[in-house]
C-alpha cells in the first residue's frame, strides 16, 4: 500500500513538476520585480518624462521637448557641476577602495582583539548621514573645531583652515567625511573577498620565496579581481547618488564648490521649484551611470574572453 501511494504521488509530481518547474523561477522573482517596478521604475519613467515638459509644480505642463537639455548644455553651471561630480566620484571611489583594501588586509590578520577592531572600523557605517554631517560639521568649525586645534598644536598650520568656507578646500572636506562614512562597506566586501582566496596559494608562494609585496601583487590582487571590480562599479554608481551628507555639510556651497549633479537636482527641484529642469539634470546623472556601467560590462566581457 505504502509503495503504491508513493508511486502514485511520484507520477503526479512528475507531471505537475514539469509545469511548476518552468514557472517557478518567474513566480519567486516576481515579488521583487513588482516592488521594483512600483517603487522605482514607474516613478523613474514619470521623472524622466517630467524633463520634457515645463512643469513648475503647476497643473499645466506644456510640452517643451529638448528645451531643458539645451538650456542645460548651454549653462556654465552644469559643466561645473559635471566637473565637480567627476572629481568627487573619482576621489571618493579611489579613497574608499584604497582605505577599504588597506584596512581589510589589516583586519584579515590574526591578532588578539580582532573583533573589537572590526567593530570600531565599521562604526562609521552605523551612524546616519545626518549624525555624520553634524559631527564632521562641528569638527570642521573654524573657531571651535577640533581639527583646526589639532593642526595648530602640531604646528602643521599657522592660520586655522576654513574647512567648509573656502571654496578650494570645501570639496576635500566633504570628501573626507564621505570617505570616512562609506569605507566600512567596501572594507567588509573586500575582507570577504580576501578570505575567499585559498590559503594554499600563499603558502606555496612563501615556499617559493616570494616577499610580502610580491605575494600581494601576484596573489591577492588577482584573487580579489572579481570582488573588487563589482565593488568599484557599485561604488561609482553610489557616489553619483550621494546626496545627504554633502547637503547637510555644505548645501552645495560655498560658491557651488561642492555642487554635484545630485545636489543640483535637489536644489532645482526643492529650492527653485523647477521640477522639469531638475528632472533633466537627474536624467543626465542617470546617463552617466549607465555609460560607466556599459564600459564596465564591456571590460568584464573582454576579461572573460581572455
Amino acid at each position: 500500500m505504502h509503495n503504491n501511494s508513493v508511486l502514485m504521488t511520484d507520477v503526479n509530481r512528475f507531471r505537475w513538476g514539469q509545469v511548476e518547474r518552468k514557472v517557478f523561477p518567474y513566480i519567486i522573482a516576481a515579488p521583487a520585480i513588482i516592488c521594483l517596478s512600483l517603487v522605482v521604475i514607474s516613478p523613474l519613467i514619470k521623472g524622466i518624462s517630467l524633463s520634457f515638459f515645463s512643469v513648475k509644480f503647476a497643473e499645466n505642463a506644456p510640452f517643451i521637448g529638448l528645451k531643458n537639455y539645451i538650456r542645460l548644455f548651454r549653462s556654465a553651471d552644469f559643466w561645473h557641476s559635471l566637473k565637480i561630480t567627476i572629481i568627487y566620484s573619482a576621489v571618493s571611489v579611489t579613497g574608499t577602495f584604497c582605505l577599504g583594501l588597506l584596512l581589510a588586509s589589516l583586519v584579515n590578520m590574526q591578532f588578539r582583539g580582532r573583533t573589537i577592531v572590526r567593530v570600531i572600523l565599521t562604526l562609521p557605517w552605523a551612524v546616519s548621514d545626518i549624525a555624520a554631517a553634524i559631527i564632521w560639521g562641528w569638527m570642521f568649525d573654524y573657531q571651535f573645531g577640533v581639527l583646526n586645534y589639532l593642526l595648530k598644536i602640531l604646528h602643521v598650520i599657522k592660520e586655522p583652515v576654513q574647512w567648509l568656507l573656502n571654496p578650494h578646500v570645501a570639496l576635500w572636506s566633504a570628501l573626507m567625511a564621505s570617505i570616512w562614512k562609506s569605507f566600512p562597506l567596501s572594507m567588509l566586501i573586500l575582507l570577504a573577498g580576501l578570505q575567499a582566496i585559498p590559503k594554499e596559494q600563499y603558502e606555496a608562494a612563501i615556499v617559493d620565496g616570494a616577499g610580502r609585496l610580491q605575494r600581494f601583487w601576484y596573489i591577492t590582487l588577482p584573487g580579489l579581481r572579481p570582488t573588487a571590480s563589482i565593488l568599484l562599479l557599485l561604488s561609482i554608481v553610489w557616489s553619483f547618488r550621494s546626496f545627504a551628507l554633502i547637503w547637510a555639510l555644505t548645501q552645495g556651497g560655498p560658491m557651488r564648490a561642492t555642487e554635484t549633479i545630485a545636489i543640483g537636482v535637489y536644489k532645482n527641484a526643492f529650492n527653485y521649484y523647477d521640477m522639469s529642469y531638475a528632472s533633466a539634470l537627474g536624467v543626465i546623472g542617470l546617463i552617466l551611470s549607465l555609460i560607466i556601467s556599459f564600459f564596465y560590462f564591456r571590460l568584464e566581457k573582454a576579461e572573460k574572453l581572455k
Partner: protein
Amino acid sequence: MKEVLCFFRNKSVVIILIGLMLFFTLPTAFGDTTIEFMHYQFLEAGKKDIIDELISMFEAQNPGIKVKKTPVPLADIQKVLSTRIAGNNAPDISVLGGIQSKAIALGWLEPLNNYIDFAPLKNLLCSAWDEESKGADGKYYAFVQESMAHQMFYNKRLFAEAGVKVPTTIDEFFDAAKKLTKNNEQYGYYLVTNPAETARMFFDITKWVYAYDGRWSRNNALTLNEANVIKAVEMYKKLYDAKVVPWGTDKGTSRKLFWAGKIAMAFEGPYFYEWIRANNPDLLKDIGTAPVPFPSHLCGGEIVYLGIPKNAPHKEAAMAFIKFFLRKDIQRWYVEQTSVEGALTGMAGPEFLKANPWYAPFDGARSKTSTVEGFSEYSTEISQIVTNQLGAVLSINKPAKAAMDQAQKEAEEMISRKK
C-alpha cells in the same frame, strides 16, 4: 517551512488590515472638521506653548473645528510643503518657511480676500502685507503671523568693561565692535559668514544694504551693483576681516555665544529677549536694546507667513482660523505673549510697553523685508547668486565691485532665461 510562510502571510494580512482600518477611521471619528496646521514653531520651546494656547482659544470659540498640529523641522518645511501640495495632500494651513514669493507666483495659495474683508484693517496692516503678501491681482495671499524688525541688542556689562558707549553711527559701531573683541574669547558682533546658510546670509547682508539706504531693485530693475549695495558688501567684508565676528559658526551657535555672554552686540528681533529669558535668565539684567546705528534708520524685517494652499481640503475652516487670528484682541494678546509684532501694527498696549522698556526700539520701527521688489518670485535664486558672490568676497578676497557686478549679470541672465 511552508506552514511558517502561510502563518506569516496571514499575520501580515491581519496587520495590514488593522493598519488600514485605523487609517480610515481615525480622522473621521468625530464628525468635526479637522484642519491640519503645519509649522516648525510646534518644536520651539517657548513658542510652542503660546501657539497651543492660541489654538485652544480658537477651538473653544469655534466648536466643530479641531486643529491637528503637524510639526516639521524648519529645514524641511520647504520640501515637505511643496511635496504635499504637488501630491495633492496639502495641509490646511502651513507656515511658508521662506517660499512665500514662490508660492504666490506659482499659484499655490488661496487668496485671503475671498474670505476676509481687509477694508476695516487697512491702516493697521504692517508693511509686510503690501511688500510680500500681494499677488499680481492685488489680493493678499499670505497671512503675516509675525513681523519682526531687527534692532540692536547689546550686553551692558561687556560695554562697561570695555568702556564703550552705545553706538549711534556705523563708524562708532565698528570701533565699538573692535574694542569689544578679545581674540577667541569674546567678539563684538556676529554675522552669517557661511554661504551654506543662504537665506540667513542674504538677510544679514540685506540689513546692511538697508543701513546704507541701498536697495536690491528700484523701479522694476535689479540694482545688485548699485553704489550703496557695494558699500554694504565692503562693510560686511570689513567686519569679517577685522575678526570682530566669529568665522563660519552657524547662526544658532552665534546666538548661543551671545547668550553665554561672549558676544557683545546683535541685530535681532524682539523674540530674542524671550529666548534669553528662556536660556540664560541671569543675562537679562545685562541686556540693553537700542535702535540700529544706521543713518537710514531702516532695519531689516523678519516675517513669518502662513498660507492656505489652494488644494487644501478644508479651506473654509482654515480661513476661520485666520479670521480669528486677525481679531484685534487676539493680536494684542499675541503681541503681549510673544513680544513680537503680528499682522497688525501698534497692538502693544501702554501697560505692556511700561512693563517692557526694552521693547521701545521695536515699537513702530521702520522695517523692510528682504524680498527683492518686483522680482520676488526669483528671490531664492537671487539670494543664492548674491550669497555665492558674498562668500567669494569674504573667503577669497574677491573685490566687492567685481563680485556684485557679476551677481547683477548672473541674476539678469537667470531671469531672462526663466521668463
